[in-house]
């Protein structure tokens, strides 16, 4: 039995269908991240799970019961909002205990639960303050505390870190990871930040236009993207996509005379003469002067070099096509150089140009 099961959920606003049949089954303790750009339907799906929006069709089950039509308060869920959504005139203590107070949990028991959550989130000294006296990070901790004390079956997070500044976001991300490791709760987490998704998720559902493009572990989503969209969305800088043609057991990069050998694993799924999209992650490329031997050579013209600190981002051209490579920071390169980059066999991804689907996901 799954902790949370989303079955063929559809949602239409008039003629516009924002969710086009979503199926996900979550095991207890899983951390699912719904990842996608704005308008992909991820927040709508979260609101449907929370009961704040109604699905047009489909079913959602928590444990062994359907929760469609059940009031949000009776769904055994807790939700953390992007804007924190704290009650402005209640103290932190009452904010955290509000859900229990509304459920008529006795005062002593409530106090204990609030104290416990506050200790876990390291906000004990703030319990008697008002939300207006807290910083953004502290407010978000209170909002998380309010969800924690309820001990629900499923936690829902709606872009909880988007309102925080970069440094605090990093801290809170680690904090969330620590909490999840400790409490082993089932989580559905919405974000458009792929780093958050990669670091927090046990599984990621990459969404686009109301559909799931790929549902898999962070490793699968990163290393075996199912579609061109996923390949472009996950990873920064995004995966390089080059037009290639299968030609006699090799991949000819269009607009140049560069060829890469067609990896063995693709032989049975491509046909000779076929036009495909070749994906190579910028971080999978390295300079031929590197000590690591092996790999296929790719001759490029360096156009722009950007040193970010930990790496040197090179924007280059292969024939007419653009290619980005993340190289070692001390690489000896200059603008306008002709360089030879190396890429390993298993770092090559092939996609169908029309459908965007991966050959061998």
């Amino acid at each position: 039995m799954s902790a949370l099961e989303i079955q063929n959920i559809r949602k239409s606003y008039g003629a516009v269908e924002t969710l086009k049949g979503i199926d996900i089954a979550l095991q207890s303790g899983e951390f699912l991240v719904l990842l996608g750009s704005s308008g992909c339907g991820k927040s709508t799906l979260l609101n449907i799970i929370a009961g704040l929006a109604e699905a047009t069709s489909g079913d959602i089950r928590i444990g062994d019961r359907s929760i469609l039509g059940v009031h949000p308060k009776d769904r055994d869920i807790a939700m953390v909002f992007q804007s924190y959504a704290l009650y402005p005139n209640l103290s932190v203590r009452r904010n955290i205990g509000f859900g229990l107070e509304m459920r008529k949990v006795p005062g002593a028991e409530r106090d204990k639960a609030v104290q416990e959550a506050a200790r876990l989130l390291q906000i004990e000294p703030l319990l008697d303050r008002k939300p207006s006296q807290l910083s953004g990070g502290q407010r978000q901790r209170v909002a998380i505390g309010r969800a924690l004390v309820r001990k629900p079956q499923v936690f829902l997070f709606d872009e909880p870190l988007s309102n925080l500044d970069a440094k605090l976001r990093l801290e809170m991300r680690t904090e969330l990871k620590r909490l999840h490791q400790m409490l082993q709760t089932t989580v559905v987490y919405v974000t458009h930040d792929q780093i958050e998704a990669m670091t927090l998720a046990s599984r990621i559902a990459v969404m686009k236009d109301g559909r799931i493009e790929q549902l898999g572990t962070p490793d699968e989503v990163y290393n075996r993207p199912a579609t061109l969209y996923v390949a472009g969305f996950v990873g920064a800088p995004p995966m390089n996509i080059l037009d290639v043609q299968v030609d006699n057991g090799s991949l000819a990069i269009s607009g140049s005379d560069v060829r890469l050998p067609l990896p063995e694993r693709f032989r049975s799924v491509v046909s000779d003469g076929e036009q495909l999209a070749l994906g190579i992650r910028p971080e999978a490329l390295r300079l031929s002067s590197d000590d690591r031997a092996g790999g296929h050579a790719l001759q490029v013209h360096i156009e722009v070099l950007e040193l970010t600190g930990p790496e040197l981002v090179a924007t280059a051209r292969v024939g007419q096509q653009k290619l980005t490579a993340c190289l070692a920071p001390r690489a000896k390169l200059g603008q306008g150089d002709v360089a030879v980059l190396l890429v390993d066999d298993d770092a090559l991804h092939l996609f169908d140009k029309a459908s965007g689907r991966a050959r061998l996901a």
Partner: protein
Amino acid sequence: MSGSWMTTRAWLLMLPLLAVMISVIGWPLVDTVRLSFTDARLVGTEGSFVGLDNYARMLSGANFQRTLVTTTWFAVISVAAEMVLGVLAALLLNQQFYGRTVLRALMILPWALPTVVNATLWRLIYNPEYGALNAALTQIGLLDAYRSWLGEPNTALAALIVADCWKNFPLVALIALAALQAVPRDITSASMVDGAGPIARFRFVILPYLVGPLLVALVLRTIEAFKVFDIIWVMTRGGPANSTRTLSILVYQEAFSFQRAGSGASLALIVTLLVTVLAVAYAALVRKAAGSNA
């Protein structure tokens, strides 16, 4: 540009307004203060200085005290009812339903009508011979015979309060509705997930956002209700048996009906002072409320 030139220019720009204000408000006010220390009559005598006689006579008179009570009743009950009705109407009009925009526009109508029109309208409703209220109440069996709502001392004030509420609750509703739209959706959603019922949601989620704007509405309405004149003058002229006579009506009667300009002026200044005290007290209250929310 130097600061002093800015200051000079500001005063220059305000000069026309100041001139008008001084001539239509400032000078009459000064003259009223002067009059209040004399026994001048409206026509005929210029009057001679009588010191605080007018004030002493007015404050100790039974008329003033009874009128102060009537005015207070009128203000407290009508403002309280307007606040409650206004908030309820705003909560209703804040819901999603078909025809909401039309209803919102319609709601403003009573407040947008001139008071005289509103008062005349209610006089028709209360009419002892063909009034709609009498007809409605007898037809549903609540009343045996037609009554003169405005003609009986024990119903006249209540009838006036109803008319005043009908006119003024839309203002409160409008202010409350604007405030309701500032309640963040996330907090409402959070309270639903937390299991707050409608009453808890109103108290913990909505009310904090309503308090400030409602205080402003309360101040405005109380001061206006305390000075009420037009609606009463059109509907009852302070009668029957002075049962609806408020302070402003009393001032008018003293100064114009009885032509006692001196004592009328002193009474007017007493009312002004009372309203000023109210205004200052409320201003302090609003400041305090704003401070506690920051």
